[in-house]
């Protein structure tokens, strides 16, 4: 049956319409859980607020389990699901740059737009900076092209690289996530800040 677009069950346009509604829902939940505050994201770095880490890890393992079970029941063909191609070196460099930006700005692109839409000045400035960065990268692309395209590894999955089945890797990731949640709550107790 799935993926829905690849198998022509819904059209590209319906897909965009669904994405629009899901996006509104996502933004609403982000805002109502307090992610529009820059302290939420910066807190992960300083250890006093690990909600972001917990939320995104929970989302990842939920989606992962959902896909694996849907594949097991024959509802989705995993071979047709797009796997983002991996460029190892640029992923590391990009991760460091983005991470530094997240700590300094206190937003990620999603929460930045979320904060900007409720009128937070820091979030508006962050979003402006985001576009400046995007244009800077686009116009100076030739400077970065070599780094950007270094070590292309294709659509590689961790489970393939480790030589284990997708299901076994899922279990390992769930256990890792539980360990991280435990460590996160320990960190929140260890580095407390006053309520805000």
């Amino acid at each position, binding site marked *: 049956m799935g993926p829905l677009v690849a198998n022509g069950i819904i059209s590209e346009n319906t897909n965009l319409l669904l994405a629009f509604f899901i996006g509104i829902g996502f933004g609403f939940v982000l805002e109502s859980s307090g992610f529009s505050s820059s302290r939420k994201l910066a807190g992960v770095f300083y250890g006093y607020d690990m909600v972001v880490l917990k939320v995104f890890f929970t989302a990842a393992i939920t989606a992962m389990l959902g896909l694996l079970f849907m594949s097991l029941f024959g509802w989705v063909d995993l071979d047709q699901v797009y796997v983002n191609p991996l460029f190892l070196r640029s992923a590391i460099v990009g991760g460091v740059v983005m991470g530094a930006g997240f700590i300094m700005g206190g937003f990620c692109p999603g929460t930045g737009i979320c904060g900007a839409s409720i009128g937070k000045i820091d979030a508006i400035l962050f979003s402006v900076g985001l576009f400046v960065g995007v244009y800077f990268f686009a116009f100076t692309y030739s400077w970065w092209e070599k780094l950007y395209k270094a070590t292309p590894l294709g659509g590689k999955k961790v489970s393939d690289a480790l030589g284990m089945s997708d*299901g076994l890797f899922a279990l390992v990731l769930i256990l890792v996530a539980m360990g991280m949640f435990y460590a996160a709550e320990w960190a929140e107790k260890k580095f407390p800040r006053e309520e805000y």
Partner: protein
Amino acid sequence: MNPRVILAVALIPLGLIIAAVPANKTKQFRLTAPELLQETATGSQFMQPDAVADMLVKNDPSLQLIDVRTPEEFAAFSLPRAINIPLANILSDEYTDILNQDAKTNVFYSNGTVQASEAWMLTRQLGYTNNYVLEGGLNYWFANILGAKEPSSVNPSEEFAKYDFRKSASAALGGGSVVASDNNTAPAAATKPPVANKAKKKVTGGC
């Protein structure tokens, strides 16, 4: 209870289940037998030889001829710019990017139409579009395109137009003197078989 504990109680058993069961490797057929029958009945899988010849003469880049005969037969003779995907290897992963795409028009051909139709049926059942069968196969191609015969004078003028087109197409495609083949073997010609283009088309999408 701590939400972390609730989450662990809910997710770890699911993880254990998914780690224990084997992955689902079954391939779904995306066309049911009645749907396939419907398509076969309308004959929409066939591509007319004149249309193919026209695209070949015009060097239409959207045309991709695919020879489904054996590599030996392909080496002996092939149509211009055709690539060889033997019927036995049609399901190989190597060719998925060529067969499953929506940019080019793939036209399968064999000596008759049996093998080409089999290739079309297999790929169609996998849900691939843009694959067609050269109507009449190479036998018809030799008899009527490369060896076009002048119609007798009682024929309507369309027949003469068709003949003129086929005669010039045949000249452009290096035919003319080739004789029509018998049922099972295609005659050898001096056409050098091009190498199959293995360049993979990147899938696009993602976040």
